[in-house]
């Protein structure tokens, strides 16, 4: 009888903490695991070595930006991939609605439509981003990366960086 009560209480506590954790990670902030080299050297600068996969970066994603969908140029955001809704990607916002962006090595200029943004990885050589799948609707965003929280020697803020040569603000 005592063990049943204990298990029941323990189960209730786990369930409550699970619910609270889920709510906090949906509405306020959560931790995300960054895989891949598309944001080198901002994230995962050591992934080329053998032990690199154990020291992948973990970043803090804040969800307050999803209230009004207000992003700035140079923000690093996490979003659901337009080609596969189960995957999430982390890239940097280069252009916001109304801006004109030029494709590299070409004279074409593209206007970002309303409600969309142009995302690119910092490592242009190995990044699948808006240069292949076009502008991404802002409704797919699920958080903004503000700080790196792991590994301990890389704890710090994620900086904003804007390539001024390719974009003209609308």
């Amino acid at each position: 009888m005592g063990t049943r009560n204990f298990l029941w209480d323990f189960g209730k506590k786990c369930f409550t903490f699970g619910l609270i954790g889920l709510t906090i990670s949906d509405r306020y902030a959560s931790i995300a695991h960054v895989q891949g080299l598309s944001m080198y050297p901002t994230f995962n600068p050591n992934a080329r070595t053998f032990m690199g996969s154990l020291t992948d970066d973990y970043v803090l994603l804040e969800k307050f930006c999803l209230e009004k969908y207000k992003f700035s140029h140079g923000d690093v955001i996490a979003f659901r991939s337009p080609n596969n809704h189960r995957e999430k990607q982390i890239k940097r916002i280069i252009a916001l609605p109304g801006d004109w962006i030029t494709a590299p090595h070409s004279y074409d200029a593209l206007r970002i439509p309303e409600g969309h943004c142009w995302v690119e990885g910092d490592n242009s050589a190995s990044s699948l981003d808006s240069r292949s799948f076009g502008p991404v609707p802002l409704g797919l965003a699920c958080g903004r990366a503000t700080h790196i929280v792991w590994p301990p020697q890389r704890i710090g803020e994620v900086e904003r960086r804007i390539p001024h040569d390719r974009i003209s603000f609308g």
Partner: protein
Amino acid sequence: MKCRRFGGKGEEDMGALSKLSQWRTLAREAAERTAILAKFLCILHVTNTYICTPTLVYGPSMLPTFNLTGDVLLVENLTVRMGKVRPGDVVLVRSPENPRKTVSKRILGMEGDRVTFMIDPKNSNRCQSVVIPKGHVWIQGDNIYASHDSRNFGPVPYGLIQGKVFFRVWPLNGFGSLRQ
């Protein structure tokens, strides 16, 4: 005389102690009530996001399925999360032109399908045909004369779908699950 003075001082101490213990019980009760409220809000959030939520839709784009002035519908998220949405379902979609707006439309095609639609049904009979790319769906309002949908902004990514409508609560003469 002396005894009375000592008695008075003792009574003041007792008064201060009982006030302190009263504040402590009050604080403990307030903390418990706040914890219950926080747990309730968390359960509400999880139910609304992951299971089922009511919502009010209005506008002319889904006539005659939904009224112009407003219908209260029940929307479930489990089907969307499992990826089992099918053509013919009415879904809530975050608008690709304004992420703060959520619209209700019907899915007419999934990825890989070929969709044929009339570009401007009010003025001409011209049709156009489009193949839906991977990971996208084609959404269209039932009222093709007054609906701003995929015919204007193209196929939308599946990740923008918020939920599937399965039941109408208000108005009462339409109470029940939705038919095709």
